[in-house]
């Protein structure tokens, strides 16, 4: 959570661009990753992330603090935008056929070849999971959101999230075992 986030959000709600800029700087990488793992393509992820923040900025006046983190609101916008994207998207090539350059690895030069291959494998396996399992893995194990935040984002109970995360990890493990 951003330092002094409540005040920053209040200022952003009043239309203060610099306040929203701070929120953008803090949350953009998280939302970008979330979208990237879901769509599997860098350019699409960039476009969708841009749309998410544009929508958030245009509707910031309607934002109401119900005690949930601001990130939950952003993730929900992103999730809905991704659903719309898949609803209207033309057929695209599969994740396996993607050029790895379209999917940037974390500081590629610094990683060993083995680690890079492992990351690619996990990414591909992640894309093969059911969408709700993808959401759980990304939010819980990559972005490290709390169970409560994830439950709010996915509109499920905390118990359901715990159960789903167990199944999601099991499925991911099974896919990775099959491939290796």
């Amino acid at each position, binding site marked *: 959570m951003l330092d002094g986030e409540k005040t920053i959000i209040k200022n952003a*709600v*009043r*239309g203060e*661009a610099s306040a*929203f*800029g701070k929120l*953008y*700087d803090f949350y*953009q*990488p998280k939302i*970008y*990753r979330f979208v*990237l*793992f879901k769509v599997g393509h860098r350019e699409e*992820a*960039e476009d969708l*992330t*841009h749309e998410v*923040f*544009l929508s958030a*900025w*245009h*509707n*910031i*006046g*309607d934002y109401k603090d119900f005690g949930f983190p601001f990130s939950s609101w952003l993730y929900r916008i992103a999730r809905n935008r991704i659903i719309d994207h898949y609803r209207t998207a033309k057929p695209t090539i599969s994740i396996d056929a993607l050029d790895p350059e379209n999917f*940037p*690895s*974390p*500081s590629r030069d610094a990683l060993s070849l083995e*680690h890079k291959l*492992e*990351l690619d494998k*996990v*990414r591909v396996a992640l894309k093969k999971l059911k969408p709700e399992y993808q959401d759980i*893995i990304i939010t819980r*194990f*990559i*972005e*490290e959101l709390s169970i409560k935040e994830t439950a709010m984002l996915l509109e499920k109970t905390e118990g359901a999230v715990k159960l789903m995360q167990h199944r999601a*990890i099991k499925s*991911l*493990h099974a896919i*990775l075992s099959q491939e290796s």
Partner: protein
Amino acid sequence: MKNIFTTLKSLRAIESSPEYHAHSRSVILNTSPKVSRPRIVWGWFLENLEVGASVALAGLCIFLLFAGFSVWRSFSPLSISRLDLAGLRAEAQAIDIQIKLAGLRYEESALPIITPVSSVETTIAEVIPFQSATVSSQTPDSSSVISSSTSDDTTSTAPLTLDEALRQLSE
């Protein structure tokens, strides 16, 4: 399993390019947001008025729904409970009496004509006690009336057959 979690965590280091980040940020912040206006008193009043009006309307609908049933039950023309049974009974009795009196008058006129027929005699014999029972208070001496009318009718009308007498009786 542990290895998966470590790998997933390392995916957290993925970031968009700094150029994209800066460009997207400036494009977004150059647009104007939909700012929430501070709530004014008139707006607050209107909002409450809307809520109040809808609650009142819903209450009125519920009231009309229930009141309608009870009003219909009380004032419905089809309702039997509102009928004045005693009055109706008296009225019905009055109507019956008139009919019987009219019938009696007719029978009085028919009496002498059908005297020769034995079956008609029995009918008259049945009618006469009935007449005396029902209209005794109104006609002090019905037998005398009958006998007098009998004498009049025998002189003025021609004798009837049994079928004609029965038909007239039925009319």
